């Protein structure tokens, strides 16, 4: 009987060791997980901490805490250096999602070949810094189906994403899962930081119940962000996560931190508490499961350089068609509506340049200039039909807005003008027609 009991004990011990081994293997495996697995790899048992590790962390963070970092562009980047030599080290996870089409707005610290999954390289470098922190990279676009499952597996969520649908998605998921959301964002020379769904503070929807109309969202074509600005906000996000994880708490559920790099000023804006009639965190919420956020916002998460559809197809032409028109020497005016800085980088020689902003403002001087150029070109034709004006920009969004403005110009002064935009803009021109044209 004693031998039987000993055997049972040994078998239990073997099972325990096997579990531990599986956990360790999981840690050593090039932890490149496709998609969003249902469960996290197990955390190593506390007893697996070496004496040195205990010494290192005992005065720092005692409790294991896990952090989900959504997005690893400019905001996600600084986490690496923040966790490298932690004055505070979280015993936990550093997770990122990877966007299939993360483009433009390169952060100051981003490296790696184009198209290489950023989460993997980010996690690999983090892993090298601090072996007691486990990093699990995720690849894929976070969607309504994966988000809630993923968020539930973590204690704190950091939103480092770069688009509107993901911000609503992550916020709603955090409310439904009851997790604090440390949300950072940056554009051009401004940055914002708020901790949502934390200690009675508002959620994202409490402050911004409706998404902005898609064509009022500044896209990467005319947006862009300075890597230093995302770096500053990203570091502050990491700091707030550590404060929440350690129990110190954060005050940014009551205040929005605004960083104005131009003015060199931080502002703390006192926020409202959560809204009693909020659609998701209110007293009787109407949103009880995650929705289709791309439909809700009218834009796509994976394509932050959204392609707008403002015009019917009869008002648009392809770059190939425009090339044919050029070759056939069809009289027309090509109008480039990009900002001056971009025109300085590259332009089509024969284009007339008027920034979209000037058209929107109906700037007299510019409109007269356009009128003059149309009249000059028109003299080369004896036809009385509508004179074609083709509008181009970087990606084909602003050009559509410009066409709409041109369509409303008074016929009396401009004569009959047939305005069309060139689909895909100069970047389509560069890829499909002229490979020597710079892509920027």
């Amino acid at each position, binding site marked *: 009987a004693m031998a039987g009991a000993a055997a049972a004990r040994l078998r239990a011990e073997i099972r325990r060791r096997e579990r531990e081994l599986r956990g360790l293997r999981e840690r050593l495996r090039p932890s490149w997980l496709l998609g969003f697995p249902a469960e996290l790899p197990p955390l190593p048992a506390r007893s697996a901490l070496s004496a040195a590790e205990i010494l290192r962390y005992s005065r720092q963070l005692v409790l294991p805490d896990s952090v989900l970092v959504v997005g690893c562009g400019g905001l996600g980047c600084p986490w690496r250096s923040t966790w490298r030599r932690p004055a505070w080290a979280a015993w936990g996870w550093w997770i990122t999602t990877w966007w299939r089409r993360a483009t433009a707005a390169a952060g100051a610290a981003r490296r790696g070949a184009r198209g290489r999954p950023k989460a993997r390289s980010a996690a690999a470098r983090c892993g090298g810094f601090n072996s007691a922190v486990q990093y699990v990279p995720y690849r894929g676009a976070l969607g309504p189906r994966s988000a809630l499952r993923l968020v539930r597996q973590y204690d704190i969520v950091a939103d*480092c994403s770069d*688009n*509107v649908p993901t911000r609503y998605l992550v916020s709603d998921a955090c409310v439904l899962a009851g997790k604090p959301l440390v949300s950072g964002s*940056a554009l051009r020379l401004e940055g914002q930081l708020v901790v949502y769904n934390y200690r009675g503070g508002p959620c994202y929807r409490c402050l911004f119940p*409706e998404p902005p109309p898609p064509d*009022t969202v500044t896209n990467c074509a005319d947006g862009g962000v300075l890597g230093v600005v*995302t770096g500053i906000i990203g570091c502050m996000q990491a700091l707030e996560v550590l404060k929440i994880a350690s129990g110190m708490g954060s005050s940014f559920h009551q205040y929005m931190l605004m960083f104005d790099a131009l003015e060199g000023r931080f502002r703390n804006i*006192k926020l409202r508490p959560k809204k009693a009639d909020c659609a998701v965190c209110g007293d009787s919420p109407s949103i009880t499961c995650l929705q289709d956020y791309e439909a809700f916002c009218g834009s796509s998460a994976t394509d932050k350089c959204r392609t707008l559809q403002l015009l019917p197809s009869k008002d648009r032409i392809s770059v190939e068609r425009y090339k044919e028109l050029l070759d056939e020497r069809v009289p027309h005016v090509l109008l480039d509506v990009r900002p001056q800085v971009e025109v300085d980088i590259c332009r089509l020689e024969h284009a007339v340049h008027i920034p979209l902003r000037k058209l929107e403002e109906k700037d007299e001087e510019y409109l007269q200039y356009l009128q003059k150029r149309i009249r000059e070109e028109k003299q080369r034709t004896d036809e009385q039909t509508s004179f074609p004006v083709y509008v181009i920009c970087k990606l084909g969004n602003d050009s559509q807005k410009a066409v709409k403005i041109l369509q409303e110009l008074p016929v009396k002064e401009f004569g009959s003008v047939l305005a069309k935009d060139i689909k895909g803009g100069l970047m389509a021109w560069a890829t499909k027609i002229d490979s020597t044209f710079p892509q920027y």
Partner: protein
Amino acid sequence: MVSVLYFARSAELAGLRCENPLGPRQKSALQLWRRSVKLAVIRDQVVFAVRQEYVLLGDQLLLLQPGDEVAIIPPISGG
């Protein structure tokens, strides 16, 4: 003098970053908001703050003192 500060998208829409409206010291939040008609499209997407404090966009009257700062803050989503 009261300053109205426009941030992010609101600065683009209004075409300026800061202005100093004149007129009565008592104004409602909505009156201040309607200074720029171009902002109507982002009405449900802003934090409206007076003296660095969130204020509901409504008819309630605000007594503005010289030096007060009114801020119109749309969310930014980049990163």
